């Protein structure tokens, strides 16, 4: 808990602020943590940008599967012919093994 001992609303450094910014995506910050982060942001434009970037990444990733399907459906996300044949073969083998019982 070394990092946490650095945590004070008045002397949060950028590294500690970035840890809180990341934690805020995972859990509710305590009141003290929220205050410290907010005060740090007020005086630190790069950390303001960082928080916005985390949000940008989160929103972009949340939209990934849909856009992935739309954009890459045809060229990159299809089972290869070999794999398709291999899976069918395995299923047929499993099927005839069961029927043979």
């Amino acid at each position, binding site marked *: 808990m070394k990092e946490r001992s*650095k945590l004070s609303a008045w002397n949060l*450094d*950028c*590294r*500690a602020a*970035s*840890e809180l910014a*990341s*934690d805020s*995506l*995972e*859990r509710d910050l305590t009141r003290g943590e929220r205050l410290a982060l907010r005060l740090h942001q007020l005086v630190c*434009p*790069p*950390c303001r*940008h*960082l928080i*916005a*970037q*985390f*949000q*940008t*990444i*989160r*929103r*972009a*990733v*949340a*939209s*990934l*599967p849909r*856009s*992935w*399907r739309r*954009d*890459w*459906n045809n060229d990159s*996300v*299809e*089972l*290869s012919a070999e*794999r*398709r044949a*291999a*899976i*069918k073969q*395995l*299923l*047929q083998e*499993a*099927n005839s093994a069961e029927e043979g019982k």
Partner: protein
Amino acid sequence: MFEPPPADADLGDPAQWVDRYGDALLQYAVTRVGDRETAEDLVQETFLSAFKARRDFDHRAAFSTWLIAILRRKIIDHYRKDARTLVTTDAELDEVAPLFDRSGHWTVPPANWRSTPASQAENSEFWQVVRRCLAELPRHLAQAFELRELGLATVQEASEIAGITPRNLSVRLHRSRLLLRSCLEQKWFAAEAVSASEKSADESSPARAEQARSS
């Protein structure tokens, strides 16, 4: 997302499942494990497990939904196995140390990314950069990021899968986010800022050339 499942109660010829659902399952897997070969392995295992368990399918949900549920468990198992082979040296190894100076300030301050995420998400080039940046992360950091940001696991589940405490997971998430944002800023947003300010950005533009070299 899928064609309607076969109407007959016995689900048809299992070999036809592959043609009907294979690509959709692969898409689901590829977006979550990143690696094509692994994704195909997981899809294969899913079909075989589905075949063995087909009598458990109760027709209350769509067959496709049932297959996805099996695949999802395969993906989580995959991460769990993966975690056992990962080196867990969080304590000694500090991947983000170069991003800060000794007093804890940024060595390269994060910039203002001007474009909105919605417009980024439309762009498949952007996704290729995201994938490349994720691939460059140390595997245990990429794993933490993917488990949480792709919504595969809760904090508790993700910690269990990785075999670490929730506190350690938050350390890994912090590092993965910082490295990812730094990579995206270099490989995408910097080049984009240039092309936005000079509408006819060409090969002579330093950021474009830099992006071309690193791609």
